[in-house]
């Protein structure tokens, strides 16, 4: 693992940086309870569509404060969501600040937060129309969006390997039947398949059930194309001389498939895994965007964007509402670069 990271750093700096960006995003997701200054569903009725509170070190008198601070924002025009920045009221930002008691990762109680204010509010990315802190919703939303991607991909790949591997190795009738089934799956346009599968289940499911359902639906769509490719690779690797030699040595079928054949698909498959995670993240975002995925009040980066649909005014008056789109973009592009970089590193000729 260390070796792979080192090689990435040397050969492909962007991939190396992307790896750390992704790791950071997952870190945010895991530590959301600690990092987010407010609960994701806490509504501040006095602060709807509040713009991001800027962090200052210098006050209006150009005096330097060691401790960063924000100003108090006051809503002056509810109809137009206009705010006045009260530059007299300095609200310092404290770290490891005490706040409301809540459970961290569902394990233990704590009332400490990474940062927060004692007076005034700190909305790093502004608020939505219900007055909920977008920054907090982003880090909580990361949990959904990032985990669904990984789980969906892993399930697809597990299915793809299993079915593709069997089909490719045994060939003949088994191969024929399995491939025809795979082709039926591939024929369906994935977007509509996704919608119909979702529609087949009641709209009002508990959020946890919806979460699982989305994972299942996404992997349901993705495994077929993968199975076909793995099967193709297995078919050709099966004829390679070192596989024949393994057979001649008397190794069991199981050992041949798992020690010789499957590892030689890794150069493609690990790269493909990394490159398809973005698709799964987008799939979840799309479902949530259309209201078929994670429901309010739970945040996902997709459903945070859904409020902007049909409401283009938002773009001009409250552009910070689109920031979840930026995070989706950042995640996808990082996975893309990482996948590219991994492709080179996993070639044994470079070891």
């Amino acid at each position, binding site marked *: 693992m260390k070796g792979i990271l080192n090689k990435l750093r040397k050969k492909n700096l962007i991939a190396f940086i992307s790896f750390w960006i992704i790791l950071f995003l997952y870190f945010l997701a895991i530590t959301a309870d600690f990092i987010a200054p407010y609960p994701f569903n806490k509504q501040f009725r006095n602060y709807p569509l509040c713009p991001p509170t800027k962090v200052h070190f210098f006050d209006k008198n150009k005096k330097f404060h060691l401790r960063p601070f924000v100003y108090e924002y006051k809503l002056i025009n509810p109809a137009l969501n206009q705010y006045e920045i009260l530059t007299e009221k300095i609200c310092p930002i404290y770290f490891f600040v005490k706040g409301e008691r809540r459970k961290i990762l569902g394990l233990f109680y704590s009332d400490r937060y990474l940062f927060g204010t004692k007076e005034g509010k700190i909305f790093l990315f502004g608020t939505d129309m219900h007055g909920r802190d977008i920054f907090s919703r982003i880090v909580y939303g990361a949990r959904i969006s990032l985990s669904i991607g990984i789980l969906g991909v892993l399930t697809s790949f597990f299915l793809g390997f299993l079915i593709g591997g069997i089909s490719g190795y045994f060939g003949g009738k088994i191969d024929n039947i399995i491939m025809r089934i795979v082709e039926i799956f591939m024929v369906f346009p994935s977007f509509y398949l996704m919608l119909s599968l979702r529609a087949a289940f009641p709209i009002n499911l508990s959020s946890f059930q919806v979460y699982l359902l989305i994972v299942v639906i996404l992997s349901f769509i993705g495994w077929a194309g993968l199975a076909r490719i793995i099967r193709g690779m297995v078919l050709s690797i099966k004829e*390679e*001389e*070192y*596989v*024949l*030699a*393994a*057979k*001649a*040595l*008397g*190794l*069991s*079928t199981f050992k041949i498939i798992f*020690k*010789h054949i499957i*590892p*030689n698909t890794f150069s493609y498959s690990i790269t493909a895994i990394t490159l398809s995670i973005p698709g799964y993240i987008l799939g979840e975002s799309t479902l949530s965007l259309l209201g078929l995925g994670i429901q309010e009040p739970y945040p996902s980066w997709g459903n945070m964007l859904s409020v902007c649909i049909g409401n283009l005014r938002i773009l001009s008056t409250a552009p910070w509402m689109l920031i979840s789109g930026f995070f989706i973009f950042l995640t996808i592009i990082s996975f893309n670069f990482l996948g590219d970089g991994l492709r080179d590193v996993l070639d*044994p*000729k470079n*070891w």
Partner: protein
Amino acid sequence: MEILWKVEELKKEYEIRTEFKKEKIIALKNINIEIFKGEVFGVVGESGSGKTTLGKVLIRLIEPDEGKIFYKNIEITKIPERFLRRYRKNFQIIFQDPYKSLNPRIRCGYAVMEGIDGNKKEKTEKAIEILNLVGIKKERFYDYPHQFSGGERQRIAIARALSTNPEFIVCDEPTSNLDVSVQGQILNLFIDLKEKFNLTYLFITHNLKILRFIADRIAVMFKGEIVELGRTEEILKNPSHPYTEKLLKSEI
């Protein structure tokens, strides 16, 4: 002399499908041979003659379509793979392309260890011993195939074949992809190993000159059939089949 292999009426066909038609290619036809223990049985032919297929079908790496194969009087043609596995240790194979016959992801020592029985320590020791025997030093045990030259890779492949203590080895053009000077080294190695371990070889090549040097008997193959079979000296002095004559005339 003990008969190690007996092959009766072996047949193997391939179907090639192009966009418009199916073509049947006969890889092996009417193959009847016996291989005696301790001999070097040479097979010569050009591309498409079926000589490589013969080697692979004999030890059932490829399944024949018709015919019977007997290994020491046991018919192995129809035994299910899981029973055949027990016998596989007795007959091994070395391929032509040293760049493709080793798994690029497995270190050379481990590749040789795969066929050895025993605990990890015993396996490692035996693997080091066999590699030494073929001329690969202990320090290179953990290197990957791409770190070796062609000749060295072929030696590792030979070590792997020896790891199961076989009686019989199919040598499928083992020197064709090597430089001339390395070819000589490998051929010498084959002869030394044969004497040391009392091996029997099926030696497949397109180069008659090698067979003249190493083979006791030669089978000449053409379009899937054996057109001539006999002792090396006889065939080379008095060829009876026109194709054999043509081969001999083409020798430079």
